[in-house]
């Protein structure tokens, strides 16, 4: 169900009630190394304890919780950019180190129980996709984030590179698309004979990952890119 963002979370919201309303936040907390067992701690307190920017943390949580929430970058400061990049980097590590390898292994096992043609076709589909995902994250890790690091270290246009965040905005490839396709193939088009409890499990993990990536992309495109563009203009 989409949740409408008429009352987004604030610094006074309790962390526990936020998670109870949106279990996907558990994964976000995990990436930020926030340990569970935080009792009735508020967002403001947890941010202070872990050295997080409350503005950035709240924005991330609201994006994950409310489908119609639109982040307002006017509420963020230039030095929040570093916090956003740090979060995106830990998210990348989570996707490339945990989510995708797990999905790959499960799909591989699932396909063993399928007919030869489906197995061949879907193995190839996933292998191609895997390469695309690796390329996507590599580009951000080796070009985009280092550029932003450099820009933050020496603002006022003293950067030597001709790279601009605009190039990221124009070339940002969509890695959720094929995940959506895979979801439909596994749900609707793979034959009934190819059934195992694993098929359900794989599908559920695709739903979770696709939703996660969509929100991750939103942070990159609607928050990070415009903030960096603003900094470039200064």
């Amino acid at each position, binding site marked *: 169900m989409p949740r409408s963002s008429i009352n987004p979370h604030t610094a006074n919201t309790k962390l526990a009630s936020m998670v109870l309303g949106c279990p996907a936040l558990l994964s976000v907390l995990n990436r930020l190394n926030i340990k569970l067992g935080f009792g009735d701690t508020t967002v403001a307190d947890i941010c202070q304890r872990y050295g997080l920017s409350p503005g950035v943390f709240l924005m991330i949580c609201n994006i994950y919780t409310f489908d119609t929430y639109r982040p307002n970058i006017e509420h963020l400061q230039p030095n929040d950019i570093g916090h956003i990049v740090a979060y995106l980097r830990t998210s990348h590590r989570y996707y490339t180190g945990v989510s995708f390898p797990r999905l790959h292994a499960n799909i591989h096992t699932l396909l063993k129980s399928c007919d030869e043609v489906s197995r061949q076709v879907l193995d190839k589909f996933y292998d191609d996709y895997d390469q695309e995902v690796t390329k996507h994250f590599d580009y951000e890790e080796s070009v985009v984030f280092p550029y932003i690091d450099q820009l933050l270290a020496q603002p006022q246009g003293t950067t030597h590179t001709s790279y601009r965040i605009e190039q990221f905005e124009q070339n940002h490839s969509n890695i959720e*698309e094929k995940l959506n396709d895979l979801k439909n193939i596994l749900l609707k088009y793979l034959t009934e004979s190819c059934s195992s409890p694993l098929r359900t499990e794989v599908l559920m993990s695709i739903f979770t990952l696709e939703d996660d990536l969509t929100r991750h992309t939103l942070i990159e495109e609607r928050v990070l890119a415009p903030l960096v563009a603003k900094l470039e203009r200064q």
Partner: protein
Amino acid sequence: MSSAKVYQVLLVEPSPLVGAGLLAILSKLREMHIIDHIADLSEFVERRHAMADVLIIAPSTLSHAELRNVRRYLPLQAPKLVALLSSPMEEAHAAQFDATIGLYDTHEQVAQKMRFVLKGTPQEAIDSNELTERELAVLACVAKGLTNKEISNMLNISINTVTTHRKRISHKLGIYSISGITAYAIMNKIVNITDL
């Protein structure tokens, strides 16, 4: 019917305040499901938004030229189109919409207008996902790796028609990438794996 169809609604409205207000009213209507609220069509994501049955859009987000033939310009084929007005609209433009909602409409008026719009929605326009013969032919070509231009020559149809077919295919199957289309075509024996 107790298990009535739930209609997917997409809202395009640049004002967060107006958007949130309308969503609050719509969220009380059980037969409607809000897919998303976007500020303008630049935020449109085919995969997430194209399945909308009803598009509620602020005409202020469209240019005068686009409004003259609004359905042709829109990136989706929503069966129902509702204008969310903050200022008066030319009559010829308004005629293309199934209803208009004004800023001063009451809860009841909005609910009534939306129900009226949904009542006239033909089910088959929404539910039929079967591919036509032409679509199957285009699908096979896409799976074989042909470009739009090559498909257009081969089937003797315009490139524009090829793109329309491809959009419909993707929308019906829920598959948008070429490699996904290829996988589907092979698994359903529309093309042979050795043909590729």
